[in-house]
């Protein structure tokens, strides 16, 4: 499961909830209580209206493949070629990720294809949110 050598995040007070969420297999975003904006990455105020009244909200984990590159150079923790992708979540925000359970080819990685989050533990404290092609009714093997 873990990919040795991969760069890992170190949570800060503002982002700890997000990484606690992925560890519990939940993808957590924030929503402004005043203007309703749903945003990412985490911060304790709304980037649109500056309100400090914001709430954590659980994302559906569904989205679409928005853009990507297929990297062909060696990086610790990765076996090239591998896609570095951006997904657009159903709730609106975009996030960088990797697409797993999928050939890392232009033919398999089609823009706007539905994807869903999978949680990949890296250490005792860090679990990364990755995405795979969305299953229809049953989980794919």
């Amino acid at each position, binding site marked *: 499961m873990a990919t040795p050598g*991969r*760069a*890992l*995040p*170190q*949570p*800060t007070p503002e*982002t700890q909830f997000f990484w606690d969420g992925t560890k519990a297999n939940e993808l957590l975003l924030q929503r402004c209580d005043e203007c309703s904006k749903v945003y990412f*990455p985490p911060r304790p105020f709304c980037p649109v209206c500056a309100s400090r009244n914001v709430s954590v909200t659980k994302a559906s984990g569904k989205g679409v493949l*928005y*853009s*990507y*590159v*297929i*990297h*062909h*150079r060696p*990086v610790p*923790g*990765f076996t090239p*070629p*591998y896609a*570095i*992708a*951006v997904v657009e979540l159903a709730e609106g925000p*975009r*996030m*960088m*990720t*990797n697409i797993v359970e999928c050939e890392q080819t*232009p033919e398999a990685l089609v*823009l*706007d294809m539905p994807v869903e989050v999978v949680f990949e533990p*890296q250490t005792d404290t860090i679990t*990364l949110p990755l995405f795979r092609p969305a299953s229809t009714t049953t989980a794919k093997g």
Partner: protein
Amino acid sequence: MPHNTVAVVGAAETTKLGVITDLSQIGLHADAALNAMAECGLKPKDIDGIACAANETPVNLAHYLGITPTWIDGTSVGGCSFMIHVRHAAAAIESGLAKTILITHGESGKSRIGNPMRSVHPQSLNGQFEQPFGPMGPPSMFTIPALRYMKTYGVTVEQIAQVAVVQREWASKNPRATFRNLITTDDVLNSRMIAYPFRLLMCCLVTDGGGALILTSAERAKDFPTKPVYILGTGESVETPLVSQMEDFTSSRAFRVAGPTAFKEAGIAHKDVDHLMIYDAFAHLPIYGLEDLGFLPKGEAAAFIAGRNTAPGGSLPLNTNGGGLSYMHSGMYGMYALQESVRQMRGTAAAQIDGAKISVCHGVGGMFAASGTIIFSNQAP
């Protein structure tokens, strides 16, 4: 803001470009600065403002060059920092904070002497929300928006490859360009894959070098031995340190702020532009730049370049030094784009555009993180 009241009176690159093993990074700054001071007859005591970026600060350079400044600028937002230095310097001269400002750049990008590799801190936003997914520097990040652009506008990788082909034509005319042999679209498409859809020849060089600019008031510029190049308009902006968080993957918000701000200040129309530099760390950047600066409607720039409109003999000469793709790219390329604009306005470029009177020089910093635009003219106010 300044409009034709400030001029470039000194402009020079390092004596050598390419692989430079006998100077450290601060030495490259100094070599360029001494060349610029020599061509306009200035000594350190004549300079009262200094700007530079990245890990050589104004403190380092003021000390190293023997300058006692009344104004400094250490704005460091990537490769367009120098466009922004020019903007800030023009405002400083206009408002009397300094009379004669030196902007220096040196970068041991290839040999990495006195230029340690930078790392991404794991507590930063980049370190938490991008680095864990395997990017390694600009080739794997700056390129991420491109597939979305291509799908949105039906642009092909063959068209984007044409950017590199056309710029090599310009480089072939420039004795100081790193790569001068002509290339074909097939050469680009057969070069090594770096980060699909980007192949090696769609990515910038990695070299050593530097450059320096000296600015003073347009009034004082008349007394210098060099031909003054006037600053007509300037713009700057930033968007996000995270390429994944760009508002629009088909367009740069920082470009859309900096560019039009400079055009408005200059009071010119696009048809008035004789020469254009758009920072090309990767082949898609001139496409984004042409559209975000308003030269073309969205989605049309790739066909415009492939149609040879920016090539030698075309209506809008673009990146006439060969650009970051073929001329040189030490990591922060903006200084070299500015140098080519100044050469074109002085009439001293290797591939000189006959009769050029207005040059637009547009820079990017980070991965679409920042932008600066400078519009130059050689026409006295």
